[in-house]
């Protein structure tokens, strides 16, 4: 390796839907404004960290957060499915907030999940919050899935992982400008791998400057911050810690 690394230029372009087209490990992907990843060639929609029933998990501990988070998350997911008509939906782990969450689902919300599997593959990649996958709901349960040169798994693995698509870290970007500060969920990618933002309505965000992201990227990564109906590409130097 040379002392002076050649400057890396990211290739990215806005897509008509407000998303951002870029490549991960040589495969074309679209980062959608909803926080979903769209693999057009394979017609696969990937969403990470839905954390369904987080509200009721808090309520059980005495904090009565509005009980509409599952409904809201599934509404957003249904809108993405309607917009992309995917052949498969991949839930990239931590779909449920905890192991008992499936049992707390309302009938309507469970119905929405069943509907999601109709006419397409529904793949549950398991995560740390939901290691066993669903009990009664339809779909395949897997640890990871390989498609089009990409590997889709919940938690990013240490070291070089070309083509890895993961969630788990809930990346968020903080952009500081003289007129104010914006903190948004974001995709984060170095062109080799990508970490997806959490899709769940109550899922929080972890600043990409946090040590948890250190060592994942071979070069200063690019953030795809979720703006209002658009994904905004933001360079590493523009990003601030919390």
């Amino acid at each position: 390796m040379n002392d002076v690394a050649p400057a890396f230029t990211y290739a990215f372009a806005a897509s008509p839907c407000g998303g951002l087209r870029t490549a991960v490990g040589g495969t074309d992907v679209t980062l959608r404004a909803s926080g979903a990843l769209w693999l057009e060639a394979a017609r696969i929609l990937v969403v990470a960290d839905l954390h369904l029933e987080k509200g009721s998990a808090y309520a059980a501990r005495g904090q009565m957060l509005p009980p509409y988070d599952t409904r809201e998350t599934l509404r957003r997911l249904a809108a993405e499915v309607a917009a992309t008509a995917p052949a498969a939906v991949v839930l990239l782990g931590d779909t449920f907030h905890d192991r008992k969450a499936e049992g707390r689902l309302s009938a309507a919300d469970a119905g929405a999940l069943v509907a999601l599997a109709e006419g397409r593959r529904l793949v549950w990649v398991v995560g740390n919050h939901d290691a066993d996958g669903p009990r009664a709901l339809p779909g395949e349960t897997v640890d990871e899935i390989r498609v089009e040169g990409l590997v889709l798994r919940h938690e990013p693995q240490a070291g070089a992982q070309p083509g890895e698509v993961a969630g788990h870290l809930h990346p968020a970007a903080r952009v500081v400008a003289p007129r104010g500060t914006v903190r948004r969920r974001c995709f984060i990618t170095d062109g080799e791998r990508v970490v997806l933002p959490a899709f769940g309505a109550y899922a929080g965000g972890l600043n990409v400057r946090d040590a948890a992201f250190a060592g994942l990227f071979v070069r200063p990564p690019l953030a795809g911050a979720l703006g209002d109906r658009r994904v905004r590409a933001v360079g590493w130097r523009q990003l601030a810690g919390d």
Partner: protein
Amino acid sequence: MADAAGSPADLLPQRFRDWFAGRGWAARSHQLEMVAKARAGRDALLIAPTGGGKTLAGFLPSLIELAERPPANSPRGLHTIYISPLKALAVDVERNLGAPILEMGLPVVAESRTGDTGISRRQRQRVKPPDILLTTPEQLALLCAWEGARLYFENLACVILDEIHTLHASKRGDLLALDLARLQALAPHMRRVGLSATVDDPEVIKAWMASHRGVEVVGGGAGSSAPSTTSWSSSPVGTGEELAAPTSPVPPPRAGERDHEVVEGALVSHRSIDLVRGPGGAQPIVDLLLSEGRVPWAGHTAQHAMAEVYEAIKRARTALVFVNTRFQAEFAFQELWRLNEDALPIALHHGSLAAEQRRKVEAAMARGGLRAVVCTSTLDLGIDWGDVDLVIQLASPKGASRMVQRIGRANHRLDEPSRALFVPANRFEMLECQAAREAIAENRLDGDPPRVGALDVLAQHVMGCACSEPFDMLALFDEVRSAGPYRDLSWEDFEAVVDFVSTGGYALKTYDRFRRIVQLPDGRWKVRDLNVAQRHRLNVGAIVSPAMLSVRIATRRGQGGRKIGEIEEGMLEMLDPGDTFLFGGQVWALAEVTNLDVLVRPANDRDPKMPSWGSSKFALSTYLAKRVRQLMFDESHWKVLPTDVREWLELQKDRSLIVSEQELLLETFPKGRRNFLVAYPFEGRLAHTTLAMLLTRRLERMGVGPLGFVCNDYALAVWALEPLDGLDFGELFAEDMLGDDLEAWLSESFMMKRAFKGCAIIAGLIEKRFPGEQQKTGRQITFSTDLIYDVLRRHEPDHLLLRCARADAATGLVDVARLGDLLARIKGRIRHIALDHLSPFSVPILLEIGKERSPGDARETILAEAEEDLIAEASQ
């Protein structure tokens, strides 16, 4: 009054008379009157200027009762609770009260209890209460949420509320009023005593502090939808004087004995409050400082006059220099140090400095070791500093009452006038200073309007009651409605609040099994378990402060060293690493921000980069604004103004217009490639900002794309590429903008989110120390209340907390009420003039451009600009 109240011989026991005589004093008439009121078992509000022996007047009856009661073998519980808005004031009063107790050898224990009191002392106070407890509203709320509250307070004879005028019109005031109702229920004989500085409308405070109890309906006229057996007085205001107590000492009334009056066919009752007035102080002398007779066009710092301010400090014994913001405090302090050739001891005091540093300044001040303190509203209240002989107000006073309070800090002796010096920073401020001087001279003050108790605060209180002991819903409803701010509370709202406390109050009833309060077989409600109660007690209080970050000096290894203070997160957002800023009177460079620490290094920069900073967090008071408009319109009045300001007004009259007090002046003119619309409502920055946001929405719809706007306390300017002269201004300023436009804008605005967060914390939906998600690595994932807000707004837009947030945003954050009054006032009274170029009045506001905000979603713009930067970098 003293004769009416009774002579000292009747009212004061021998050792009290001896004590007064020994100090060469005579008991003042209002002090004796307070003793007489207590003998008669009456609630009383004492209004007296600072320095009038007000605090002693409040305590004297309690001291006498305690001195005269027979010895007892067992502990008797609390006799008197004193509530102060400030921790420091509670501690100070503890010290001051020590003197008479010690000198008369009274068998009385008086102790303070604040958030800073040590755990062992607090525990002892719980087991063995002092006779007199000096504390804050937050601590009182905590005591009321104790399991043993009923026993603890059963012998309480008196509650004293100090500086009541600063408390009542706020959420803290709501909480305090509810706790008063609770105390009264636990101790029916308890007397209420309020102490207040001069206020414009004592009736508002009396209505706030009175107990509004009801009795059986006789005529059946008063309407209440409550399934309660009682009816209520909807307006106790104005009944106090007529029902004043007998003027000679009488035995205390039996419990439950009340005043009666007939209102609208129903027999209602309440315990009215007797008003006691202290002597009027000497008229303050307020001067204006004009630097070389000139007033600058614009600006907020009064930098031009600092040399004269320094001279004034030199001539005074001790001066308090008040400013309106922390930034101004830092700036003024640095300017004074630069001028300080005589090395005068001058200090700085504001809310961001480390508590230890503030205590040091206060101690030095108390010793008489300082010549001046530059301070913000942190020193508006309280602690008695006898040596202050001059109060300097830098920049605009914003309100007459605030100024009276500040001026009262000078010279705590009644017979000598307080001296104050106003230093206007610009020409509109000059008008404001003059209006304030005249208002003070006429003793006309601006008052807070009465407020309706907030439901998020009520939710906290209901939870506190359930933590203390099981409650009956009907009885609690009656109790809550006896509190002034909640006297018109509907049963429906109360039920909604109880449902919220129990399950979150959602239309989707999925949380019934997780109830935080549960119903006993007898129908009463109690907290589910100890854990829920404990968590409630950790989060009691009604002050939600903005996120604060510690400022620490960076060590060589780049870690956090000594803490020098705290700053609000918002201020930090204007700084990048390497930027220099003033803090604690020194210039620092921002090194790094880590978690909750801001690391800084000393910088040698004499001219720190200053973040743009709002002129004041206090809005110009409605009353003072009106006086400014009157002053401007009345040409004969201009002669009191300095020459350059007078010439400026005359030039404005010549080139543009001067309109009458009820009218609104609108100017349109081109400047550069832009076209401006400038309006002069004089209603304060907050109302102007809201107005400007709504105007730009309308202008956009009219097809005149506005490019930006800027507001100050006096005016607002909007600019566009297209000319703005031909518009229908009556239509543009029509009152209906407060309907859908406001609703649509507000629900998207960050202000609603901020208001929602505050309400969610107070109501206990989320906890102040929100348990962040601890992941395996121990990292904190920030879980923003914005997410909750977004979900709730979509799925249950009428939820109780959204109603609370809307009410808060409309009053505190965007001043909708004031905007509504403005639009009503100017309807059909808009005077528009199309000019060729800018007017004399427009200069100050145009000079503020640069701080402008663009209409539309500024935050999207920030992201878009970040993206553009990246693109520019990539295409180099």
